[in-house]
């Protein structure tokens, strides 16, 4: 499956200030792509558009299989906040998105893998913020998504938990090979997980740099990641503030490849 994102412009109200402009890129089968950019770059909005929750003002998102249009893929969506149903237990929150009968078995298995065994019958209000996030991740994995959309899924988690959940996400990716699109503020996190990083500028959000990450997996070495990070920051000093001129300076931005 491929996803062609082609958004000329998106504003929340007709004639309003655009949040996104000239966003076009291609997501390839089984690719993990990370979106990095400052606040106000419309990254969450872009995720909502690709997930079909918002229709773009101008432009479209095409899902294709072997070059032919296909219906929207099965989506696992991890929102910026956990967004669990407060009136359902952790296990029921997961089986809610599964239609089949043995869903409680699946739900309990996923919760166990997320380190939440014993919390199956607790309500979200009884779980800590980090635990709620883990339930939200388990919910996204539960549907065996073809497209996994994640909006800063590991933010405000302690380091070991974040690392554990990243590993779990990669496990899912290894077995099911969904397209993963995930938003993060954390450059190192993007480099440790993604095949490709797309940098956004703000107001309106537009991609300014699109680079492949060719570090071999598994990327267990923090040093390699930090080294790559420093290299990139040296090459593109303004990369994290998302300034426009990067595009003009780097007409071949898609062919930089093999930075390692």
């Amino acid at each position, binding site marked *: 499956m491929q996803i062609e994102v082609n958004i000329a412009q998106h504003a929340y109200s007709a004639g309003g200030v655009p949040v996104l402009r000239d966003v076009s890129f291609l997501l390839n089968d089984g690719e993990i792509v990370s979106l990095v950019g400052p*606040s*106000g*770059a*419309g*990254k*969450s*909005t872009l995720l*909502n558009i690709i*997930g*079909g*929750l918002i229709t773009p003002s101008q432009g479209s998102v095409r899902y294709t299989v072997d070059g032919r249009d296909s219906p929207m893929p099965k*989506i*696992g*969506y991890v*929102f*910026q*906040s956990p*967004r669990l*149903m*407060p*009136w*359902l*237990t952790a296990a*029921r929150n997961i089986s*809610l*998105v599964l*239609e089949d009968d043995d869903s409680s078995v699946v739900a309990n298995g996923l919760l166990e893998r997320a380190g939440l065994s014993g919390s199956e*019958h*607790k*309500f979200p*209000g*009884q779980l800590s913020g980090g635990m709620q996030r883990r339930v939200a991740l388990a*919910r996204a994995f539960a*549907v065996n998504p073809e497209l996994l*959309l994640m909006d800063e899924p590991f933010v405000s988690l302690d380091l070991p938990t974040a690392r554990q959940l990243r590993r779990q996400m990669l496990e899912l990716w290894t077995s099911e090979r969904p397209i993963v699109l995930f938003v993060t503020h954390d450059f190192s996190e993007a480099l440790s997980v993604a095949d490709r990083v797309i940098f956004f500028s703000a107001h309106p959000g537009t991609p300014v740099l699109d680079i492949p990450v060719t570090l071999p997996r598994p990327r267990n070495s923090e040093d390699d990641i930090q080294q790559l990070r420093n290299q990139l920051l040296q090459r593109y000093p303004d990369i994290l503030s998302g300034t426009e001129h990067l595009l003009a300076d780097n007409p071949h931005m898609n062919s930089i490849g093999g930075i390692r």
Partner: protein
Amino acid sequence: MSTERQSDRLQGQSTTPVPAQGAPTRRSQRFWLRSFSILAFLLVWQVGSLFSDADTLPAPLVVLQNLWHHLTEGELLESLAATLRRVVLAFLLAMATGTLVGFWMGRSRSADSSLDSILILALNIPALVTIILCYLWIGLNEVAAVVAVAINKMPTVVVTVREGARALDRELFDVARAYRLSRWRTMRFVYLPQMMPYLMAAARSGLSLIWKIVLVVELLGRSDGVGFQLGVFFQFFDITSILAYTISFASIIMAIEFLLVQPLERKANHWRDGDAD
């Protein structure tokens, strides 16, 4: 994005306006306070009856004897049954139509603006006018009686349910859409739990209003039921029987509240206390 962030944070607080039920100890404490207030009321009544004419304010025990008499030899049970049936039918009719219209008005701005003035009108039409018009247009029958009561109640259900539908959490709805939940599952697991406090509030205020109006409807155009009987007692200045009937249906209301409404409410809110299901 900063606004999205903010709304994310707010989401945790955007719960519905029902306080959690108390712990068992608080519950028993409440029970004693409640019993105490009833005892105090009976005491005042007893003392009052000592200082007045026995026909004007009979003592509680006299009323209780009279109640027993009506229960065993009179038509109290038949009257209560007839009234209760009308209450239930009118309640269901008002809740069903009121919920539908209220939900629609809460979700659709155009529906809201086009129906809003009619709603204000409906809220302010005196009950007596609707009752009389129903009897005149539909006839002096059961249908007219039930419809008249339902029409009186429906607008307040609409107002309450509309409030709930407006407060529905957009973010949870997006979860339902992203995971493509069926319409039924969205209704059952995403909308209904959020609407529950509003539906319970509508039901509770609905029951009390409906009792009051049903009696008027019976007084005006029915030949059975508590309202009709009260009319008869009124003609004979039988204050003791009037009080006896009042006590009998007041206790039924209390029974409905404590045995039906409150347990239902607790069940709907159990996740707030954190008892697992």
